[in-house]
């Protein structure tokens, strides 16, 4: 089955091009294409993050989320497209611009022999905004590391503690844009909720733009205002969470069957994907833009003993599974 690539679920004017103060948005990516050697890893990525907004960047493993982040940070030169970080090209922007960004990559990359306070003070110097011991202690407290022994080197931290220290590192220069790659990996449920709460607080109360790269839909659903879904190097959905949920509504249906469902002709693959088919029940997903009546008619025509049709609950997960499943089925790569 091949779904046509969905460039955006938003009308163009819905994208946060500038902040409320008219300043350039923290991050804007349009039509990004990246090639590594002969392989194209990103084909058509769009991503926008506005001030005070949490944007979830969703996608399966290998979809291109980390590559998109590398381009946004000016660490990888794109083949085509437009990338703007606070209105500037990250490849040519002055170094000081990066002080406005807090990064938490998937790997912590901490300096193991340093204590948390020493490490944060060291990092603040690199960001050009030195901090004192009091500010370092406040950051440690903010991320929930205050109970760790002060003289304990980071190498002896548990994975969860290291993640928290990585969060504190990202916050050390009071960034305007936070980019976090799988930030809740390794955190216990309490730590995860605390971190998500902190991110939401930073966005709401301090106006920080947060880009949350993850494959955990529940994290995005919990705190994000917008989401972008990247599949196989393309943005397949982008918009506010409400709109995405709405778009997902009415696309997945559970069918009660009177007997085993016969196989479908090949041309019906353009209409729907069958997620599950049993003797009495089937779960189907409609292709975007296809009217449900058309699908039911095709199924009945093919001999499906349909007795009842029930719409699945709408949600981001449904859309995500629909979009990523479509590409999985097609083995699609840019």
């Amino acid at each position: 089955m091949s779904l046509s690539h969905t460039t955006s679920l938003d009308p163009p004017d819905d994208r946060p091009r500038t902040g409320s103060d008219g300043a350039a948005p923290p991050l804007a990516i349009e039509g990004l294409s990246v090639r590594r050697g002969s392989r194209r890893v990103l084909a058509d990525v769009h991503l926008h993050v506005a001030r005070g907004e949490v944007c979830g960047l969703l996608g399966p493993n290998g979809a291109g989320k980390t590559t998109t982040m590398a381009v946004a940070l000016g660490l990888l030169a794109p083949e085509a497209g437009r990338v703007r970080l606070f209105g500037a090209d990250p490849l040519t922007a002055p170094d000081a611009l990066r002080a406005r960004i807090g990064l938490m990559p998937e790997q912590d990359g901490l300096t193991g022999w340093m204590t948390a306070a020493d490490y944060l003070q060291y990092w603040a110097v690199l960001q050009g905004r030195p901090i004192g011991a009091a500010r370092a202690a406040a950051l440690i407290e903010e991320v929930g590391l205050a109970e760790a022994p002060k003289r304990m080197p980071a190498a002896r931290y548990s994975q969860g503690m290291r993640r928290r220290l990585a969060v504190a590192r990202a916050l050390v220069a009071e960034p305007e844009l936070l980019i976090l790659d799988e930030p809740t990996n390794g955190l216990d449920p309490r730590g995860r909720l605390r971190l998500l709460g902190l991110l939401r607080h930073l966005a709401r109360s301090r106006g920080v733009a947060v880009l949350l790269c993850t494959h955990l839909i529940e994290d995005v659903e919990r705190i994000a205002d917008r989401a972008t879904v990247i599949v196989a190097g393309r943005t397949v959905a982008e918009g506010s969470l409400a709109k995405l949920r709405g778009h997902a509504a009415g696309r997945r249906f559970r069918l009660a069957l009177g007997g085993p469902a016969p196989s479908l002709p090949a041309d019906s693959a353009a209409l729907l994907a069958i997620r599950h088919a049993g003797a009495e029940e089937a779960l189907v997903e409609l292709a975007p833009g296809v009217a449900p009546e058309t699908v039911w008619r095709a199924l009945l025509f093919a001999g499906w003993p349909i007795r009842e049709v029930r719409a699945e609950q709408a949600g981001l997960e449904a859309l995500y599974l629909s979009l990523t499943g479509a590409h999985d089925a097609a083995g699609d790569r840019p």
Partner: protein
Amino acid sequence: MSPAFAIARREGGELLTSPRGLAWLLAAAFAFTGFALLLVGSTQLGLLDNAQVVYDMAGMTIALGALLTAVMGVDAVAGDRERGALLPLLATAAPRRAILLGKLGGQALAWLAMVALALPYLWAVGSTGQNLGAALVGLVLLGTPVALAIGAGAMALGARLRSARAALLSALIGLMLVASPLAIGPSLRQSALGRGFDAVNPFSGAVNALDAMVIDGQALAAQGWHLALVFGWLALAYGLALRALHAPRRPGEEIVS
């Protein structure tokens, strides 16, 4: 405190305070000890005069220091990349030049630690010490650029190669090749190829200058070519490392993969 200084302190501090760094210095101390004990126990070596012994010890210090900076250089870029430490570092506001200078500063601290480690050995085997001064001057003035050039070259290599292991292997093979004049000695110059290699090799520049200063008693001022050679290599390696860490220019070019 500048970012370069902070990075240098971090990189150097790791060597001097972490068990891994101390283990490195301990291994180097064992090498010095082995050499010193060989001198005590061997009649043949015992007949060499102070200068020859001091020269050998100084050459050994440069070799061990270059080995240390080669490993540190690979680790500073390729190792950091594999540990996930390079990405956040490059995403800070610290200029690339400061990052490179900081990492080189850490290697310089490691090299100075190696020199400091070698000092008591040089004193012990230098006996009357009549050439100890020349050896120390030569060691610092010629060994430092050689060790840092090797370290910067290893950083450039680490940035280019995708795997830290491949980078380390390449750096060590390259170091063995470059440091071969130390082991081969004068017989290297018996062929035109060897003479050409000797003329452009930074290690040759350093050990030949040490030979002239420590054994032949020549003045430092007479080592202009050797000094120019080793500092030229340092400048070249620094340029290569800076280029490797700089913002990508061509599509698909990247620093962190």
